[in-house]
């Protein structure tokens, strides 16, 4: 039976889009290149069989998506963010301002502890605004129709209802640097650095870069605070829930179905061609792959207008995250929580400086999470595009400085290591299909947000190819594994 809609990629956004369409009665076929669904939200086994959340140590779908789709998602809990300070100190931060958090902050600065609840309130207001913005479709400017303009006007009213003071605080904070923002609240460098680290998590930016106010809000929204939201049984279970729900709605997911080409007939979609040569017809194709790959590889530049091709080429991807996973004997000595090595703002900024010049940071900002005997090191910054070396040479350097940095904070760790599995940005591209290893399918920078995501003029999920829609992280709502982009795109397709 022919499908109404083919969706390329069974990541969370692809699966969320599929569910919304299936719920509306469409026949949906999801094609996944890998043998496992989930995209970035996968729990996989490596080496001797150790299982872990490969790319994201936690995550959550937007709660409204969970309820819209009636999903049976596993429980998740928010972890505290623990910043490891030189000399063995720790700074424990949570978004609920509990006594332990306030005491911990108080140990570095009394004044900062007093200001913490106010900061948390501001951040929830700001991320709340961002949540609303991610739900609001971003029409093409400047000729916005009344029906498109209404949700925007609503969003503007939401903002105005915050009152002038908070409204301006939110507006000002978006283009600010995390340092500037935190300087307005806190005096302690350690507190500023911990927040700055969350702000640059996944981004190729430093805490002194303009626009990290925005990425802070974004990450705060997706995490529901500072620490990770750990999923019971692994993040892969979110994907499992989505696949199950899709099947129940009559949709289909085909694994190991590698789409090589979107078939066109004069700028109109006719279907897709798989790596094995099989062609599947459909008049609507949604791609949850990143926009650069979708447009320049699956469609192909020769089929697209030159200025559009240039804009697609100009999407800033430049991932600089690497992962170093360790199987230990269990005696790694790590406390529970989302641990970070980001002792000072300058430390994190210097780690970022290396990425600017195509080098792997020798003193990286690390995020360390442990699940039983498995320890995961999230490593920043390790740029996809190395200047003088290549990733074949640099893997050993990456693994060494990852372990050295982590072991400096947790000395027991080194001797507990049994196996190492590292993922360079190049691996993220090759294995997980993330162009330039960018987890967000396009950097979360000011000129790639809202109306300009993925490209100026194309924030509507549409493309110059009739019947082809974008629904991955690289479009509005996206960045992270929240499913917002998939939902937004599905709504557009249902209206089309």
């Amino acid at each position, binding site marked *: 039976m022919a499908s109404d809609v083919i969706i390329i990629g069974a990541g969370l956004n692809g699966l969320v889009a599929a569910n919304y369409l299936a719920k509306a009665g469409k026949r949906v076929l999801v094609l996944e290149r890998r043998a496992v669904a989930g995209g970035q939200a996968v729990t996989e086994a490596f080496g001797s069989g150790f299982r872990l959340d490969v790319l994201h140590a936690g995550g959550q779908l937007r709660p409204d998506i969970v309820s819209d789709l009636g999903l049976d998602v596993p429980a998740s809990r928010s972890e505290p963010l623990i910043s490891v300070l030189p000399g063995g100190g720790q700074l424990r931060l949570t978004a609920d301002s509990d006594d332990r958090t306030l005491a911990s902050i108080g140990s570095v600065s009394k004044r900062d502890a007093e200001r913490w609840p106010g900061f948390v309130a501001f951040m929830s207001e700001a991320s709340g605004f961002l949540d609303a913005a991610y739900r609001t479709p971003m029409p093409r400017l400047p000729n916005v129709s009344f029906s498109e303009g209404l949700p925007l006007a609503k969003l503007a009213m939401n903002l105005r209802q915050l009152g002038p003071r908070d409204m301006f605080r939110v507006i000002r904070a978006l283009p600010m640097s995390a340092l500037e923002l935190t300087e307005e609240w806190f005096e302690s460098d350690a507190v500023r650095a911990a927040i700055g680290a969350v702000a640059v998590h996944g981004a190729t930016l430093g805490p002194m870069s303009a626009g990290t106010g925005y990425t802070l809000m974004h990450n705060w929204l997706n995490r529901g605070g500072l620490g990770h939201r750990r999923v019971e049984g692994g993040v892969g279970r979110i994907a499992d829930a989505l696949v199950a729900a899709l099947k129940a709605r009559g949709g289909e997911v085909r694994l190991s179905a590698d789409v090589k080409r979107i078939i066109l007939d004069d700028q109109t979609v006719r279907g897709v061609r798989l790596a094995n040569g099989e062609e599947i017809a459909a008049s609507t194709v949604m791609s949850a792959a990143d926009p650069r790959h979708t447009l320049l590889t699956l469609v192909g*530049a*020769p*089929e*697209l207008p*030159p*200025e*559009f091709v240039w804009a697609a080429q100009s999407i800033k991807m430049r991932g600089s995250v690497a992962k170093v996973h360790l199987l230990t004997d269990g005696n790694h000595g790590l406390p529970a929580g989302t641990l970070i090595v980001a002792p000072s703002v300058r430390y994190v900024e210097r780690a970022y400086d290396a990425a600017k010049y195509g080098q792997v940071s020798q003193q990286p900002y690390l995020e360390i999470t442990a699940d039983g005997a498995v320890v995961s090191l999230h490593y920043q910054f390790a740029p996809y595009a190395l200047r003088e070396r290549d990733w074949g040479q640099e893997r050993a350097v990456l693994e060494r400085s990852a372990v050295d940095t982590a072991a400096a904070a947790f000395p027991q760790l080194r001797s507990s290591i049994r196996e190492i599995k590292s993922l360079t940005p190049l691996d993220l591209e090759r294995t997980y299909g993330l162009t330039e290893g960018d987890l967000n399918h396009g950097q979360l920078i000011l000129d790639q947000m809202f109306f300009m995501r993925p490209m100026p003029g194309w924030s509507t999920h549409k493309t110059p190819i009739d019947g082809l829609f974008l629904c991955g992280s690289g479009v509005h709502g996206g960045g992270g594994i929240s499913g917002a982009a998939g939902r937004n795109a599905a709504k557009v397709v249902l209206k089309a």
Partner: protein
Amino acid sequence: MLSTLELKVTPFHERTSRLSVAQNWRRWAGYRVVGSYDLSLDHEYWAIRDRAALIDVSPLMKYVIEGPDAARLLHRLTPRDIDRMTVGQVAYTGWCDEEGKLIDDGTISRLGPQHFRLTAAEPSLRWLSMNAVGMDVRITELTDQVAALSLQGPKSRAVLNRVCKDKLDGLKYFRWMNTSVGNVPISVSRTGYTGDLGFELWMEADQALPVWDALMTAGDDYGITPCGILAMDMARVEAGLFMLDVDYTAAPHAWIEGQKSSPLEMGLDWAVNLDKKGYFVGRRALEREKREGSAWRMVGIEVEWEGLERLFAEVGLPPQIPSMAVRESRPIMCDGKQVGYASTSTWSPVLKKYIALAHVQRPYYEVGTSVLMEVTVEHHRKYAPAKVVKLPFYEPAWKKK
């Protein structure tokens, strides 16, 4: 030192500068070229129409496009159906942006199955490269390396037959061939910018002078005349040929949308193959325009001489017309309102008419419509009666024979 501050000179400069009596130089694409050799244009103009005029057109931008996707690139770049072009053929084409507005125009010569030469008025390397993303094709600019001469006029073939190794009698309109002059290999295309019988000769820049000399010697019996670009400007208006940034604004140069022109508006319907397969830049916009009709068109305007005479007679003067093509905007009126403007106007010595290329709004662009063109009569604005006519104004029987 600081040679970049000087204008470039063409490979023929040694000859052209010595022949130039008027020292009337013009800037063309960063080069210094002869505007007119003589103090008046008559002699040069009539060489085009009656004898053989030799024009240095080296500043034309020249690109060679080669590789497996060469045809595919040009197919995508232009509205012409490149698949239908055979080796040896030359095609005139404009090319557009995605909104279907003209960026530039020039000729494509198919040199081989995977080998083309493109001429353009403006530097186009960037636009070509932007269009070649994802294609297996090599684009080389040869503007400075390749010299170009245009030999135009009824006697041009006879002159060439004398100097070229091969006879050119078989070379049809908009075809090209390889031959040589002396021991200099050249390629000759039967093309030009005058609307007369004519040829364009392409050769390596460092072998350009012998070709010039051979032509001048052999052409002497036929009255060959070096001709500047001002006389050519008159001839091209008679031929209904337009010029970038004079008769249309290249889309990238336009400050506002209204300044842009589509090939359909410019009357290039015959060079827009909407029936061809596949994507090309501007396709959808052009399809839409074809469906909905163009808002205005480039047309010929012929001023009625008696009416013009009357306007001048009112102040006691005989008609006064500039003796060369004038690139200045003149309003075209109808029913008491402005319905367009002339972008270039000229006295046509062969037709004995005052003619103009004009942008005219629908429905006034229909052939035969009576309009008025603004003229200045003794410092006062007046309106001369005129008619919309079919282009070209002048097309001699021998042009395509």
